[in-house]
């Protein structure tokens, strides 16, 4: 789960990580009031969306599709500029490298006091899967795309790993600061900041914290000018406060609905709906559909031991997608009983009225019973034995394929 920059900065502030004064605004009036209250001649007007590359993104009018402004993060030198920029941002579509061509509607901006920058750095904390530890990454090449830096000048990226038994050592904090050529007051400030940030990462169950740029000001202070914060959803049971930080408009509504009933669903661009048990098999089902020349409309994992109601909900979610021209049900029952899936598919088809071709592959626990239920019904569908046969059949039935 991701949060907005303005929310991340609030976390930073309360954890002792220095940030500039700033105000979260939802209207042009609020932005102007923020400008007046900040008392800074220069402010940054920043689009708030859950995607990176905002600075280099473009704003478009959602109705006409016209380009309104280049850059989703603007430096304003006057009250008038704040007005122009916030007008161009709010209620409009920001397209960045990370949003895809559809872009994202911007409903929030952050107006932040400017500061005098001496140097820009990059800093990130994340869980390194291979080392199985928290990794802290820093670079003197701030403000740039870190993947480019990693590609072109990997030596400019400095890394430290935190042993969970000892925590982040003072010597590690200092070493990292020195590797960024920091000294004196700036080094001291960095050491304090990185300690606070690591504590924040752990106590908030973050999956990622990225600051690009982190800056050294002309008065040798270390300030976070950006805040990209992601949380580990598995820890949501101990962070009730996340509910208030969640921005549902940033999420695909069907994915949210699926999540609520314990289904794992990801919307895709194709036209063959898939209903599968198990994440790996669900991915493989999409892959094999593609292999036979089709395009999957979704990833859908019903999990293990789903009951009839859950499977029915899953089937309805697929049927509601207007792009779906055919459906492949692929079950290898372990804990999951095939007869339950068969009953649920029948019930959902009757309720919703099945208008598209359906191919069903049942294997594993109670597959004979499941098949018998399907075969003895009036349901218009094709039964197959393997995933490959299923993919070939459904691609053929919707008139696609190689």
């Amino acid at each position: 789960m991701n949060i907005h920059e303005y929310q991340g900065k609030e976390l930073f502030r309360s954890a002792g990580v220095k940030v500039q004064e700033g105000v979260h605004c939802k209207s042009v009036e609020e932005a102007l009031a923020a400008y007046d209250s900040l008392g800074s001649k220069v402010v940054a007007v920043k689009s708030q969306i859950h995607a990176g590359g905002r600075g280099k993104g473009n704003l478009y009018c959602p109705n006409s599709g016209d380009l309104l402004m280049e850059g989703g993060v603007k430096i304003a030198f006057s009250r008038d500029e704040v007005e122009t920029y916030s007008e161009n941002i709010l209620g409009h579509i920001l397209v960045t490298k990370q949003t895809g061509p559809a872009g994202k509607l911007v409903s929030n901006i952050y107006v932040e006091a400017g500061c005098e920058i001496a140097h820009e750095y990059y800093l990130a904390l994340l869980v390194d899967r291979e080392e199985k530890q928290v990794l802290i990454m820093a670079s003197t090449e701030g403000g740039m795309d870190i993947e480019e830096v990693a590609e072109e000048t990997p030596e400019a990226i400095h890394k430290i790993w935190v042993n969970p038994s000892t925590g982040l050592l003072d010597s590690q904090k200092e070493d990292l600061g020195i590797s960024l050529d920091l000294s004196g007051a700036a080094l001291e400030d960095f050491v304090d900041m990185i300690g606070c940030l690591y504590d924040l990462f752990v106590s908030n169950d973050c999956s990622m914290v990225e600051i690009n740029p982190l800056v050294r000001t002309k008065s040798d202070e270390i300030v976070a000018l950006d805040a990209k914060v992601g949380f580990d959803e598995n820890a949501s049971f101990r962070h009730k406060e996340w509910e208030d930080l969640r921005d549902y408009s940033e999420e695909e509504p069907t994915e949210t609905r699926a999540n609520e009933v314990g289904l794992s669903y990801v919307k895709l661009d194709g036209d063959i709906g898939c209903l599968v048990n198990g994440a790996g098999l669900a991915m493989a089902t999409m892959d094999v559909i593609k292999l036979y020349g089709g395009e999957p409309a979704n990833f859908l994992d019903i999990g293990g031991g789903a009951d009839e109601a859950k499977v029915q909900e899953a089937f309805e979610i697929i049927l509601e997608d207007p792009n779906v021209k055919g459906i492949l049900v692929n079950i290898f029952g372990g804990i999951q009983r095939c007869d339950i899936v068969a009953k649920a598919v029948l019930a959902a088809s009757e309720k919703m009225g099945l208008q598209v071709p359906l191919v069903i592959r049942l294997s594993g626990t109670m597959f004979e019973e499941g098949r018998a239920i399907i075969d003895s019904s009036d349901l218009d569908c094709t039964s197959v034995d393997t995933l490959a046969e299923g993919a070939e059949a459904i691609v053929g039935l919707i008139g696609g394929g190689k």
Partner: protein
Amino acid sequence: MAIWVQEDSKLLIQGITGSQGRFHGEKMVEYGTNLVGGVTPGKGGRNIELAGNEFPVFNTMMEAINQTDADASVIYVPPPFAAAAIMEATDAFHQIKGEGVIVCITEGIPTLDMVKAVAYVNEREGIRLIGPNCPGIITPGDNGGCKIGIMPGHIHAKGRIGIVSKSGTLTYEAVAQTMSIGEGQSTCIGIGGDPVNGTGFIDCLSAFETDPQTVAVVMIGEIGGTAEEDASEWAADNMSKPIVGFVAGSTAPPGKRMGHAGAIISGGKGTAVEKFAAFEAAGIHIARDPSEIGAVLKVALEESGLL
């Protein structure tokens, strides 16, 4: 021989009185697993009936291992308490026996809890953690066998193919594929789909390489991380036995979590294309479709003079 768990390995269930523990406990006993008891804090001293047999319930793992001399434990404890259960088992096996296999089935454990638990396990030699978020490990035997986890026992048969996979249902698919060409399995291990886990691909490959019962390995990966690439590199230098490989997620969009917490392409890394390429470079036999695993395995066995 098989690897890590043998047909007669003695097993404890952590969370034996919970609904998951009871349900899968029954299935494991029915399969023939040598269950010797279980642990639920506060419920020690009583017995629990599973598949017509009585099993003792203990309050702690220390007590349970002392009383039963167990070799392995399986964890069906809810996510908030699972990491603590792993560490309790680790400590108890380490202190009493100096070795032990801990299988954690639980899905949804916070990643930073696992960072702590894995470090705890790794600091104690002789302790092996499998999972979390996995189907478990099974060594099919002559009469049933040792099934530790949630996989359907009846699809397996004792044989000479080792299977290692990040995914549950794809493991079952792989098992069915070996059966379709008349081959059984030595041991099948689900290493789980979480970003931070215990046993990895290389541990499994290395154990299969030295296991006399295993002649070939099926390895199933998925998008996210670089475990498949690392394993390929290791296999190229260290494996004499043939490997058949498949990776799930060729069609997964970047930046989206595909069911498993670890199945995500981030920063352009962890794609199926890279993983298949690594397999290819390491001489691993590739199946592009899981329904092909049997056929590809057959070719691999023939090429190695095993058929």
